[in-house]
């Protein structure tokens, strides 16, 4: 039954692909209808899992089937229903449905409406495929499909060269990660003979195989489990925009805002985090007591660095979507760090809450862009809180959730979970400080953004207007969840953690009394309020001119330039990787044209020469010989014909001669 969940949207995409262009209602209803169906099935599955885990123990149902069988080895595919996948599929289908409805309004004036919904459905189907997959291979296939649809959707307005370039960049950068991912998959298959996660004890995530992998050394002090885990993390790093491979996410904002909301906030980028959560047993295998594996350490450090790095860049950006994009990269870093330090529940909780409030923020940004007539530069907005009240309210809720404003907002509880894991991490306190600094920066840049956009004076042209209900209602729903989801992650009722780990939990206010917890909550609240305060102090409700330099820019210009230019990472890549690749492409071109082309030309020359030789032989030797022969014949005929003089007497002379000869012969033969 589970297969329906991704199948419905994919079928919808297929049907929509065959429709002729301006069939808006059909395409939209197909897409939304299929998402509704998926949501319904996800809800049923979720309820099933909840009911199952209420009795304690992890519910895990799988359905596996053999896809390819070659001799002794076989490749299985399958899907799994366990707490992790249940909660993820519910989130994906719910947020997806809301974004689909939002897109009805946002893309209403676009002429490629049908194509948009077709791609959206295909994406949704692929993402749900990633979520329910029980086999690394099926996951990888859907992963690639997700990457493809991301490419299609980022480059949706393909006539814009910047959009086409951004789509290409996204695809290629994630591809770099995917190469390592594939290597990890192949290695895992060769070591364990199976790519299934759970297979009644024989799966690759199950203790039997894990023990074997963990005991197997592979070089550089890593076990096989660690090395495979790192390779898989490389794939996740590409998809989720971790530090070296983050360059595609901000450029991906070239796509329409619903795309940014769905793919690059809530779901696709979360796929990387989900993957690591899924293979967590692998990364965690062989963990010495009280310590952690190398794989998890790498995940943590990369995550923490990304969090700070991206937050720094976000401070100096002026495009409303770019700020949110860098914010996403930063929050993904948080999630990875959470996974590394605190385990699956911690990272996943932040993923779920982040999905809701980031989608909310992006959709709010889309509403703002729509209301300001396609303006995206925050220096040309302002004072929108009176013109677009619903958008302002929901955006503010989303922003406070992202900053982790104490107590009421889900972001606070999820981020706190990560910070708590960081304080308990014995390897180093570095990540904690980095993440705390990141939280400060997050509050700061979000305040900057909100004050530029919603407060102050209107610096744009024309008049801003509120968005239609079809766009604002999903915003309201998401805002509700941004607040409400906090309830399932508080220390008093850690339902989420219990659900993932298969324990039943009850409301226990004593959970707040855990040592160090109150101090931590206080510390993080202070950090958030500090960041908010700083932002209000520097930016506040000031009236600013559209072209005036940013207040911070005036204060620390060199730092600002570095931040605004994204630490020059793109330029670095251009100079090194891209330059190397261009050089290599030239070499390959030279090789192709000179060496192989030369070889082909040589062969042609050889054949041509042979043909010429053959022709010459034919003309001079064969023809000539034949002609000469005929000539000689003719000549000899001519010669012979001279015998025929036409004169009778000549003939008679010959005749007489012949008779004499004959007689002589006869006489001499009879005599002898």
């Amino acid at each position: 039954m589970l297969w329906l969940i991704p199948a419905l949207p994919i079928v919808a995409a297929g049907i929509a692909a065959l429709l002729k262009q301006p069939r808006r209602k059909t395409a939209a209803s197909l897409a939304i209808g299929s998402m509704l169906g998926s949501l319904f099935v996800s809800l049923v599955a979720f309820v099933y899992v909840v009911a199952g885990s209420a009795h304690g123990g992890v519910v895990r149902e799988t359905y596996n089937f053999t896809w390819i069988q070659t001799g002794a080895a076989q490749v299985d595919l399958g899907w799994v229903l366990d707490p992790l996948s249940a909660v993820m599929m519910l989130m994906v289908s719910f947020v997806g449905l809301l974004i689909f409805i939002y897109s009805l309004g946002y893309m209403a004036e676009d002429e490629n409406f049908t194509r948009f919904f077709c791609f959206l459905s295909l994406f949704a189907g692929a993402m749900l495929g990633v979520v329910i997959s029980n086999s690394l291979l099926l996951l990888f296939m859907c992963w690639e499909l997700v990457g493809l649809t991301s490419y299609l959707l980022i480059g949706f307005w393909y006539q814009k060269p910047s959009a086409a370039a951004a789509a290409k960049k996204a695809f290629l950068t994630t591809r770099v990660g995917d190469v390592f991912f594939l290597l990890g998959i192949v290695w895992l298959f060769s070591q364990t003979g199976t790519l299934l996660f759970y297979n009644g004890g024989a799966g690759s995530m199950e203790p039997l195989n894990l023990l074997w992998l963990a005991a197997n050394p592979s070089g550089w002090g890593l076990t096989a489990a660690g090395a495979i885990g790192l390779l898989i993390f490389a794939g996740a790093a590409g998809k989720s925009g971790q530090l070296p491979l983050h360059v595609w996410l901000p450029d991906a904002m070239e796509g329409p805002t619903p795309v940014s909301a769905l793919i690059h906030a809530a779901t696709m980028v979360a796929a990387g985090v989900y993957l690591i959560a899924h293979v967590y047993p692998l990364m965690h295998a062989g963990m010495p007591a009280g310590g952690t594996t190398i794989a998890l350490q790498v995940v943590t450090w990369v995550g923490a660095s990304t969090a700070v790095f991206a937050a720094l860049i976000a401070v100096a950006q002026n495009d409303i979507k770019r700020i949110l994009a860098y914010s996403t990269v930063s929050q993904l870093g948080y999630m990875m760090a959470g996974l590394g330090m605190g385990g699956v529940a911690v990272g996943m909780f932040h993923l779920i809450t982040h999905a809701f409030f980031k989608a909310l923020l992006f959709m709010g940004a889309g509403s703002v862009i729509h209301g300001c007539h396609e303006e995206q530069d925050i220096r040309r907005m302002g004072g929108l809180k009176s013109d677009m009240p619903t958008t302002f309210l929901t955006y503010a809720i989303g922003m406070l959730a992202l900053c982790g404003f104490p107590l009421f907002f889900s972001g606070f509880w999820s981020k706190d979970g990560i910070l708590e894991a960081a304080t308990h991490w014995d390897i180093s306190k570095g990540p904690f400080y980095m993440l705390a600094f990141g939280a400060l920066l997050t509050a700061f840049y979000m305040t900057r953004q909100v004050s530029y956009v919603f407060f102050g004076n209107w610096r744009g042209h024309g008049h801003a207007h509120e968005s239609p209900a079809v766009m604002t209602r999903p915003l309201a729903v998401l805002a509700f969840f941004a607040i409400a989801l906090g309830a399932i992650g508080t220390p008093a009722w850690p339902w989420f953690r219990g659900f993932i780990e298969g324990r039943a939990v009850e409301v226990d206010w004593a959970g707040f009394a855990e040592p160090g917890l109150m101090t931590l909550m206080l510390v993080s609240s202070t950090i958030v309020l500090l960041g908010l305060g700083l932002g209000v102090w520097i930016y506040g409700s000031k009236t600013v001119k559209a072209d005036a330099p940013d207040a911070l820019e005036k204060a620390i210009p060199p730092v600002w330039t570095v931040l605004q230019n994204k630490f020059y990472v793109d330029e670095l890549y251009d100079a090194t990787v891209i330059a190397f690749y261009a050089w290599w492409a030239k070499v390959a071109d030279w090789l192709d044209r000179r060496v192989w082309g030369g070889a082909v030309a040589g062969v042609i020359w050889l054949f041509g020469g042979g043909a010429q030789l053959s022709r010459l032989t034919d003309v001079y030797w064969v023809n000539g010989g034949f002609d000469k022969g005929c000539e000689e014949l003719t000549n000899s005929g001519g010669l012979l014909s001279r015998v025929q003089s036409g004169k009778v007497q000549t003939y008679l002379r010959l005749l007489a001669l012949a008779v004499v000869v004959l007689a002589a012969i006869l006489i001499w033969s009879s005599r002898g």
Partner: protein
Amino acid sequence: MTPLGGYLLVAALLFAIGLAGALTRRNAILVLIGIELMLNAANLNLIAFWRFSPHPEALTGMMFAIFSIAVAAAEAAVGLGLVISIYRHARTTDLDKMNRMKG
């Protein structure tokens, strides 16, 4: 009596002269004469062999020779007729000039 060989020799000589004439003369009529000579030489041979045969009184040889003479005469007439018709056409009897059949 002269031996047979003598008659044969004469006949052979006559034949040779006739042949020479038929083969080398340019004038068509002279060729015909040569042919006549050859025929007469053949006749002489016939008569000689008749006379020296075991039955010289049977008239077979003489009949043979008379037939031959008659045939020679007829053939000469035909030949002359041909020569005349050629002369009417070519205005000459020079055989060297009659090479229309030249290949």
